[in-house]
């Protein structure tokens, strides 16, 4: 499932309320029917893993140590399963070669993949991703797509906030459009919705490789006035 919408529409806020970085002022968050408020953090970590946006790691941990924090965070993972979970997650996120590097010396994209591995290592039914393609170059964006496709087989849900509408349409079974903190659309993306929310009229073409619709946005170099 994808969350899209213009800057400041509340995508990250929704995700933060779900992974408990924020406590909602009103209303309640339910996970499989259980309220998140009052649940021990240890228990919610067994159900929900998250890839937060723009979190700085200040200490000089090794990549493997960071991923291990994810694997060990899930109390449902038995102790002897922790190390295999770490290795598997690092391979899937493509950071196993960086395992003994310090996280402080990594590039933005590498760090993003390390945090992805940490979330995967948590082995939770729900996975929340806030802008997972941030900092990633083309090849890793494609690999991320493949990784996510692989992970959804065992998981009820992956929820991610995205900017790239085409990526959202390609990856997600369901795309929710947010604007000003409210759900505007919850269906297949329609060009009219996109124009209404973003104020830009997309051009819809058919991708020559997949035959699926693809949104293009006009780039003009003239002064719009």
């Amino acid at each position, binding site marked *: 499932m994808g969350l899209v919408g213009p800057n400041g529409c509340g995508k990250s806020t929704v995700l933060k309320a779900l992974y408990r970085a924020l406590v909602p002022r009103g209303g309640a968050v339910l996970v499989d029917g259980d309220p998140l408020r009052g649940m021990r953090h240890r228990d919610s970590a*067994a159900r929900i893993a998250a890839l937060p946006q723009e979190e700085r790691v200040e200490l000089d*941990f090794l990549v493997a140590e960071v991923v291990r924090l994810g694997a060990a965070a899930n109390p449902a993972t038995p102790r002897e399963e922790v190390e295999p979970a770490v290795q598997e997650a690092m391979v899937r996120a493509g950071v196993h070669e960086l395992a003994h590097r310090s996280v402080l010396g990594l590039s933005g994209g590498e760090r993003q993949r390390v945090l992805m591995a940490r979330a995967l290592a948590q082995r939770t039914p729900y996975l929340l991703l806030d802008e997972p393609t941030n900092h990633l170059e083309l090849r890793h964006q494609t690999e991320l797509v493949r990784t996510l496709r692989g992970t959804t087989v065992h998981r009820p849900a992956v929820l991610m906030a995205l900017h790239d509408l085409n990526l959202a349409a390609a990856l997600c079974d369901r795309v929710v459009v947010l604007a000003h903190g409210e759900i505007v659309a919850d269906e297949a993306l329609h060009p009219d919705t996109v124009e209404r929310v973003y104020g830009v009229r997309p051009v819809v073409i058919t991708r020559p490789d997949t035959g699926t619709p693809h949104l293009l946005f006009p780039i003009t170099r003239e002064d719009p006035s």
Partner: protein
Amino acid sequence: MALGASVPVAVSWGAAPIPVADTARFLWAAVTGGAISTADFTDYTVILQLRTPRVLLAAVLGAGLSALGIAAQAMVRNPLADPFILGISSGAAVGASAVVSWGLFAALGSLALSAAAFVGALAASVLVYLLSRTPGGVAPVRLILTGVVLSFGFLALMSAIVFFDARGDAARTVMFWMLGSLGAATWQQLPLPAAATALCLAWRARDLDTLSMGDGSAASLGVDPDRMRGQLFALTVLGTATLVSVSGTIGFVGLVVPHATRIVLGPAHRRAVLVAPLVGALSMVWVDLLSRVAVPPRELPLGVVTALVGVPVFLVLMRRSGYVFGGSRRPRARPAWSCGRCGSTSPGAPWCRASRCGWPRGTSWDWSVPTAAGSPPS
């Protein structure tokens, strides 16, 4: 082991040195209940009544301050934090000056200074905590700022109390107290809080690692950052207030020992929380020794010695390892490079490893062989 060896040495050495062998004999006699000759009685008393408690107190204080330093740095996620960051030292100073100038807690006799310092430290830090609270929890930066700002306020209050004091020596008494001293201390009550601090931290070592990932990450990794911060706050405040009430504010140890430990061991708290107290104990024993023997018969204030010794040691450690915050147990990998003369790859070495080449790294072409107009040889 170094600590075990240092304690007898520090006990035997002082303004009036007593041979290490005699010291060991006295300590052994004291532990096993053995007899000593009357000729040794003066030395025996000095060792057992004065020096041993003092050295043990130094060790316990060093250990406690180092463990609390780690707790404080983890709590506010800031490398500049030390156990006194929450206004504890300045609050204690207000309490101490109130005793010195106004005779507060006079009923407690010699314990008045300790009691007032403890109460002052506790009150100050609770005030800091309450003022920095927001509905969304306690943000580390707010905590630091409030602590720093209120510290200035408390110090001004202390200065005012001392300034308006009728007697002239109040300022001197308070200043010496603030610089830290082991002179008038008993140590029997202290091992408990120091050990409790280290054990609490060791027990939650993984949660400390998780907290250092950032609040959002910590929440998704099963650690409630606000709750954890509150627990660390309680631990830091109670522990530090206890130590301060006994010894005054001995700065620098709680800031530098955690960093020095991480430089050598890496950032994981599991190792740091167990090793840092040992390092802190060892360094405090030696610092105390230095303060006693440097300019006999006077004693240097401990704060002076910790800074004089600690600053250069820390700077050397930091420059050698390219330390940021968290340190590195690993030397930075030197990338492989290919030799400018023979083209073979030499991982890490500062010169070419190929046989009979030995060309230094970073030389892009061979200056010794004349080539056509600066073009590199093939």
